[in-house]
């Protein structure tokens, strides 16, 4: 697409005119500012590619002389903020409130209050010459097991002081811990603000969280799969013996009851779901090869039966 056309300016437009035209298109069509407008997004993409080219006087001159084409300027696939902005664990919209909706009905006010982590009433309201301190926000990464089982850790404040943070067991990615009175200093007789710490749970190399359940993939050997038997399985609270049924297959999921997460305030734990994965020995030795060749003679078991070819 012709970059001048994309911005809606003439070929003789000044740099200021080009910037002004681009600004207008950003305002009207930037997908992060105008979500849900597909045509606008297309317009914005063309305009930003065009602006990248035309804002640089040298590139613009080369384009005008025909030395480079507009295609060479296409931007790589951009990941817009919009793709993350609506996520419930977006740490930048944890403070969103719907308190003015509360006269609607109990049902909706419960829904709008729930899950957002907005407890208590807002700080920062001025009372005469007094004002509450503002809340300060932090983000903290916690190890997977600390999030699952609870623990303590520290965060460093901008002034260098450290603050102890209790991690309640079962905390999920994106949840916020409120430390009362650990935020900004008040003015006059106001209340100090709170420190709001939004938690990011670090990934674990074995475990993955699925609600209150823990999921993992367990490699087993060929003979364990055929013969069954007991194997040691890591869980979030130490190794536990698990019985592999005779004739197990890859992809089969075994449930270890009560080996998952019990979020704070609940006594029963979720489960650990173990997906089996048969791993062949690194070298197929002669004995195994001979045995398999003998074994498969006269057998017609075909797990792919019924698959369209």
């Amino acid at each position, binding site marked *: 697409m012709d970059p001048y056309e994309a911005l809606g300016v003439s070929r003789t437009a000044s740099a200021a005119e080009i910037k002004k035209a681009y600004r207008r298109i950003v305002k009207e069509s930037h997908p992060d500012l105008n979500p849900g407008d597909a045509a606008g997004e297309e317009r914005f993409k063309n305009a930003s590619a065009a602006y990248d080219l035309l804002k640089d006087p040298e590139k613009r001159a080369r384009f005008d002389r025909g030395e480079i084409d507009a295609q060479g300027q296409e931007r790589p696939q951009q990941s*817009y903020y919009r793709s993350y902005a609506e996520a419930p664990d*977006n740490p930048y919209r944890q403070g*969103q409130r719907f308190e003015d909706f509360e006269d609607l009905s109990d049902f909706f006010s419960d829904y709008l209050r729930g899950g957002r982590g907005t407890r208590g009433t807002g700080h920062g309201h001025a009372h005469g010459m007094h004002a509450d301190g503002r809340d300060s926000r932090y983000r903290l990464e916690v190890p997977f097991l600390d999030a699952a089982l609870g623990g303590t850790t520290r965060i460093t404040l901008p002034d260098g002081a450290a603050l102890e943070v209790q991690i309640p067991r079962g905390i999920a990615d994106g949840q916020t811990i409120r430390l009362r009175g650990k935020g900004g200093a008040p003015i006059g007789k106001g209340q100090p603000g709170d420190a709001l710490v939004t938690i990011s749970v670090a*990934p674990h190399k074995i475990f993955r969280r699925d609600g209150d359940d823990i999921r993992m993939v367990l490699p087993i050997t060929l003979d364990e799969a055929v013969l069954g038997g007991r194997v040691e399985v890591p869980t979030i609270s130490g190794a536990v013996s698990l019985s592999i049924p005779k004739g197990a297959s890859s992809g089969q999921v075994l449930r270890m009851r009560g080996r998952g997460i019990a979020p704070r305030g609940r006594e029963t734990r979720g489960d650990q779901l173990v997906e089996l994965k048969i791993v062949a020995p690194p070298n197929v030795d002669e004995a195994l090869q001979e045995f398999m060749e003998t074994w498969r003679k006269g057998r017609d078991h075909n797990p792919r039966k019924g698959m369209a070819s």
Partner: protein
Amino acid sequence: MTEIFTEQQVIADVPGLDRVRLVEFIKAEIVMPVQAPGQPEELAFRQIDVARLRLACELWDCFDLQNETLAMVLGLVDQLHGVRAELRAILQAIETLPPEHRRDIGAALQQLRKS
């Protein structure tokens, strides 16, 4: 979600971002890096932060916004997306209702728009 970017990676990734601007953005709470316990001096960023910094730099360059104004604009952007997420959730919930209930809700909405 799990990908982590260091300060250097973020500066290399986001057009128009340099160290000075990044520090200013953090101070203005335009972006909040993640702290990892044990190494508080190491700043870590996630994909959402990179996307947010990209938007912040675009707005800064295009509209010459001051940090405070930029923080306010991004706050409004967050509110907009938050409201859209809630609206989407409510519409999805309505979608699961029996047709006659959906019709009632539709009629009630029409009525509210008229008044």
